[in-house]
């Protein structure tokens, strides 16, 4: 794995949630509706996937989403197949951005920059243990 840049993210607080534009239009192709290439832009880039992992580890993994599949817990295992709120890259982006009301999943949009949310999606997708047709 490549070296992670631990520098703070610039301008996080001021970051507008461009990802809002993704809205409820889900299930699209590789190209995100905000005009970016979404997770696809990062999936073949080890440094970007590594950054996605580091943010996931630092924000999502401790008391909520586990790295290994275990029964129990209110936060889904994100490397498996059963992801009703994240069936596609864009659904995953949308869920991270807006959170899930009534659960502990807060809205990260505007807190984590959109590019980094896509890097998290890229990390989750490239490490998925869900095999097509399996």
């Amino acid at each position, binding site marked *: 794995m490549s070296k992670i840049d631990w520098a703070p993210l610039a301008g996080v607080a001021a970051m507008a949630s461009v990802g809002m534009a993704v809205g409820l239009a889900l299930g699209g192709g590789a190209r995100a509706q905000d005009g970016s290439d979404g997770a696809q832009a990062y999936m073949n880039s080890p440094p970007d996937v590594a950054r996605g992992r580091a943010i996931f580890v*630092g924000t999502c993994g401790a008391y*909520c989403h586990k790295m290994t599949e275990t029964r129990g817990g209110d936060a889904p295992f994100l490397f498996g197949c059963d992801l009703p709120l994240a069936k596609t890259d864009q659904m995953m982006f949308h869920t991270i951005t807006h959170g899930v009301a009534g659960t502990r999943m807060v809205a990260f949009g505007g807190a984590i920059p959109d590019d980094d949310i896509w890097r998290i999606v890229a990390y989750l997708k490239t490490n998925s243990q869900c095999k097509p047709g399996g």
Partner: protein
Amino acid sequence: MVVNFRIAPGVAASVAALALAAAAPSVAETPASSGAPAIEGSSAPAAGAGAVSLPPTPTAWYADPGVGAAAPVSPDMLAKGTEDPAGWLHYGGGYRNFRYSPVSSLTPASVPHLHAAWSAPTGTTGQFEGSPIVYGGVMYLTTSYDRLFALDAKTGRFLWRYDVQLPDDLRLCCGPANRGVAIAGDHVFMATLDAHLIAFDRRTGRVAWNTTIANYKDGYSVTSAPLVVGGLVYTGVAGGEFGAPGFVDAYDIVTGKLAWRINTVPTDAADPAAKTWAGDSWKSGGSPAWTTGAYDAGTDTLFWTVGNPSPDWNGDKRAGDNLYSDSVLALDPHTGRMKWHFQFTPHDMWDYDGNTQLFLVDAMVGGKPVKAIAQPDRNGFFYLLDRSNGHFIRATQYVEQLTWAKGVDAQGRPIVDPTAAPQENPTARVCPSNLGGMNGSWSGAYDPKQGLVFAPSIEACQEYVKGIAVYVKGVPFMGGMPNTVDADAGKAYGLLSAIDVNTGQVKWRYRDPRPMMSGVVATAGGVLFTSTMEGEAIAVDQATGKRLWSFRMGGSGRGQPIVYQIDGKPYVAVPSGGWSSIDTLAGAGSMQPEGGHLFVFSLDP
């Protein structure tokens, strides 16, 4: 009881207007039958009901006229704590947190004859961590998601009930827990997951005042039972996984007005404690105060503990000791002025909150009596401090596996193993787990006759992973995570350790195949009660650790048992009901469904 069924004006309108209307109860479902207590929605004015920012409507069933003994709970009663076995007036039993009942009829010979007297459902999922309060024949019981019940302590009949209707975007690191109320005068006080402190008339259930402690959207919540001393009610906040700067508050019990606040992290750069944080990292330093403190009448000192610095598992940006994280604070109860502090885990990188229970014990050290504080810390060491000045006396290992430190020095500062620090790709197996050891979400007990502290604990190790931490208010700020290697491999187990305060040595251990994550009550009869993650209420011999009795409640044991006595009969109340998320993290996950239930056991004469 007089039937007084009515719906408060404005409730129907506000229910219709609120975005969360689906969560509000249907009027048609409310009990209007004879004998039912009064039901009422929020008495908050309906003005502005169209705004979705209004808090959801609370639902309550009141008792008119009131229930329970007429005499207000006096400061003298609160000082005596459990000396009167008819009541259980504090989370910790008494101000010294012994959780020790003078009831003598629960003995090794008698407890095999315990039987269920009554039970009560909570109707909620999530860990049921409540410690009931009993006064005047009434039990005040809180549940997950902040329901408050008044029950007949002898029969279990519901007398009044108040369900806080919480917002749907709470900031909860670790579940919807509520550990109980405090009682004083004619009120009970409950703090909530959306960071309010509410005073209720203990006889009717009606709200006397409702104060906002903090904006929950900034990462705050409250899970602990408040504490009352004199005319003030104390509470601290959770929020250490959100970087929310911690504090302890004191409120006037009559008016609900803030009397003082002490911050557990610096609030400006001129604070000497700011020098223990690199740069301005104290601004997002967390250090919550999420458990109940203790009070020493002898020195008129309030003791309160502080949790982990934020971010939990990445200390790169907060070089320094990070005061007052993972510390005990000695406070003037009238002003909040800090008399002294002692830090258990300087520059914590493992989430070792210093929030476990404080026992204000009388110990013998080197042949001399010492007014001491004993604490089984989450970091695996059992501390003894001089409570008059905070001086360190000793720390001994009370868990079986402890690798993060090689011991402590003469001042009590841990000698940290540098290989235990979180890594990007860790390989070191580090113990205890981030949840402990013992943990502040459950209590221990102390037997003053034997000088033994009873500490339930998790025995598990983890690999600590470091990640990126970026602070944004109200968003998780942890900087890493534990790989739960022992938990995943089924290697986690539990201990209930009896620790001698005079030596720091473990006298006996009760072993359980699963982590022990439930509170304890000790008794003058020589038998303690706790519960297991297997869902059993158990009785254990305080002298030997031998298991004497059990009853399968079904739900995992995550609550705080108590003992009380009415008409000469002893009652043992034990909560049942776990929360799969934390339970799994600890290595105690199971197929047992969630759902809280209180079981109360008794003995026939």
